[in-house]
């Protein structure tokens, strides 16, 4: 049974053609980043498991940096800005205030991404002095080329301007609708962006205040613990920046795909307010085994983090309840029998549901990470990538891909190329990720480290308490391969959808929730209040730790030299295509150094 389509209703593209163009551009940027990131991902998966090594291990770290940045900065955030533009325009039912301003911030994000990607890919070309082999976390004293830090800064500024664009829309909408509650999707967009503004304070200070000037030679040294702490000030809330668009989809789109309605609008608002308040004052849980930070601060971060489980648990209830409601609307009966009445043939529905299911597992492995003293066992081991491939890698990525199957026809007025392939793709992702992340979690428990090109050591062996390390490596490589194939299926399906027949009437009115905004306290819409409380919590969580770091080891550190993370003696494998890149890259480098120096 097909999902409820208002046959003949105008699509988003019909009603807002200019806005649809921006959304498409943002989403396409996101998919290009995903596909390129996936190529790097499979190289890594086969390399570190010693299944297939096509490059010298030194290049592994260039690839790892690219994979990290492309996946969790470019792919996720370009998708967010596209989705949020769609959601704001749709829910406020008004076009953007000035489409040129919108293209401008999108353009900034593209420029920033290209700068950072050029800096990273420069690491493949040893004769060029540009590289950023510093990984997604770019911990000082490892140092990247200024293009890298500059690119990230410009990208983030683009996102700030994007937020302002949506606030602008909302402000004007409010003038026209003075007594109305903020429509739910717009509410979610605004609260997410408020959280982002708070969260990016840390990374802005780290990059613009310290790392960029340091890479340009304007300051001599930086305090590695300080910049690391400022990174994680941002580094935890950024995961909610990835997650909240997925939640927006689970709350406002998934129920209607299931044939029903959102169980409760007020609870959805409560969840987003909780994220605004609690996402940032927890960053120190990434630094449980850092020296220089007192245990008391870590304890506070721990309790805040545990409470962050609450909005996700509430989401689990509401999403499942909404799905059950939809299933019963479609005729499902029985204690569990209603599951059969759900539209499993719909790749958008099935993808989002599998993503949510996997998120439950990821949430629990996250709780282990958060369990301060148990963190000793898994810190910086392969368990950690196992965890985040379930959360950002599935809950977010798979939801985004699944949602695209639903959204793309509404943005293009074209049918999806193939629904069966789409369904196969999401199921393949689920199975591939289960295999890969299971292997990663188990290997992490046996002590195998993350971020390592060759976790095969001379002086000792890892001891597996069941099975063997070898079989776990094979399982990881197999999972990674399935994921890569799945990514290609997604990209191909979307690409081939450019030539399918145009269809009109793709409009779909998202139904109202069972319990509407009118049932929730008006105070939930008081964005200033929640932003204020969020800032207070962050000040409380971070002032003392930051002040104590600065007091103990100085604003700029003592005796810290910079370590440009560059490959000094490159060893290219015979016949590697990368050796062809040198002549071209030298010309580019000459151009760039002319501009920069």
């Amino acid at each position, binding site marked *: 049974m097909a999902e409820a389509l208002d046959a003949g209703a105008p699509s988003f593209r019909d009603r807002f053609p200019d806005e649809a163009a921006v959304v498409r551009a943002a989403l396409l940027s996101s998919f290009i980043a995903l596909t390129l990131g996936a190529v790097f991902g499979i190289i890594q998966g086969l390399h570190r498991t010693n299944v297939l090594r096509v490059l010298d291990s030194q290049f592994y770290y260039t690839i790892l940096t690219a994979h990290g940045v492309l996946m969790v900065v470019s792919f996720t955030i370009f998708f967010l800005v596209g989705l949020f533009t769609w959601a704001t325009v749709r829910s406020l039912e008004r076009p953007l205030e000035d489409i040129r301003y919108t293209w401008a911030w999108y353009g900034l994000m593209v420029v920033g991404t290209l700068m950072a990607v050029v800096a990273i890919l420069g690491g493949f070309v040893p004769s060029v002095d540009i590289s950023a082999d510093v990984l997604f976390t770019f911990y000082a004293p490892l140092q990247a080329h200024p293009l890298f830090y500059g690119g990230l800064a410009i990208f983030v500024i683009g996102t700030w301007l994007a937020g302002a664009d949506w606030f602008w829309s909302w402000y004007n909408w409010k003038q026209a609708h003075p007594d109305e509650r903020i429509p739910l999707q717009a509410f979610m967009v605004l609260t997410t962006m408020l959280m982002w503004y708070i969260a990016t304070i840390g990374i802005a200070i780290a990059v613009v205040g310290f790392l960029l000037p340091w890479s340009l030679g304007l300051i001599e040294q930086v305090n590695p613990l300080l910049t690391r702490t400022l990174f994680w000030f941002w580094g935890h809330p950024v995961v909610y920046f990835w997650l909240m668009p997925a939640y927006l989809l689970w709350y406002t789109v998934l129920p209607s795909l299931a044939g029903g309605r959102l169980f409760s609008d007020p609870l959805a608002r409560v969840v987003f307010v909780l994220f605004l308040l609690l996402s940032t004052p927890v960053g120190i849980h990434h630094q449980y085994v850092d020296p220089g930070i007192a245990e008391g601060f870590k304890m506070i971060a721990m309790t805040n983090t545990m409470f962050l489980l609450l909005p996700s648990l509430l989401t689990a209830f509401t999403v499942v309840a909404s799905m059950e409601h939809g299933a019963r609307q479609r005729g499902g*009966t*029985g*204690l*569990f*029998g209603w*599951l*059969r009445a759900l539209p*499993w*043939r719909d790749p958008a529905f*099935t993808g989002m549901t*599998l993503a949510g*299911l996997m998120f439950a597992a990821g949430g629990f492995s996250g709780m282990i990470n958060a369990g301060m003293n148990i963190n000793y066992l898994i810190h910086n081991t392969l368990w950690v990538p196992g965890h985040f491939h379930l959360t950002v890698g599935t809950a977010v990525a798979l939801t985004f891909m699944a949602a695209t199957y639903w959204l793309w026809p509404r943005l293009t007025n074209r049918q999806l190329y193939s629904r069966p392939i789409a*369904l*196969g793709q999401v*199921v393949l992702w*689920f*199975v591939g990720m*289960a*295999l890969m992340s*299971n292997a990663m*979690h*188990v290997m992490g*428990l046996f002590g195998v480290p993350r971020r390592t090109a060759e976790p095969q050591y001379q002086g000792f062996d890892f001891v597996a*308490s*069941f*099975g*063997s390390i070898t*079989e776990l490596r094979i399982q990881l490589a197999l999972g990674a391969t399935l994921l890569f194939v799945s990514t290609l299926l997604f990209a191909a399906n979307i690409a081939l959808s450019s030539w399918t027949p145009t269809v009109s009437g793709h409009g779909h009115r998202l139904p109202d929730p069972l319990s509407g905004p009118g049932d929730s306290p008006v105070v939930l819409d008081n964005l200033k209040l929640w932003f204020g409380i969020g800032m207070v919590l962050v000040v409380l969580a971070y002032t003392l730790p930051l002040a104590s770091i600065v007091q103990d080891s100085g604003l700029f550190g003592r005796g810290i030299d910079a370590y440009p993370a560059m490959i000094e003696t490159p060893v290219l494998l015979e016949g590697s295509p990368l050796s062809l890149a040198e002549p071209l890259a030298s010309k580019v480098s000459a151009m760039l150094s002319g501009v920069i120096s």
Partner: protein
Amino acid sequence: MRDASPAGVLLGSAVLFVILWELRSALGLLAGVDLSAPAYFLTTVAIVAITAFGLSVGLFQLSATVLDQRI
């Protein structure tokens, strides 16, 4: 007459496979049980295949299980 759709069978098979496979890690880590990987994998695939096949051709029905209990 079968009551499980093709999509449902595909999805259910995937979920069943994942649950059974993860069980091996749970047994290994928590109970120290070391089950041979190739044997376990083949057994898992066999169980999933039989379940999928059986549901597809109507050999057995989901509704014969607890799914249809009234609340």
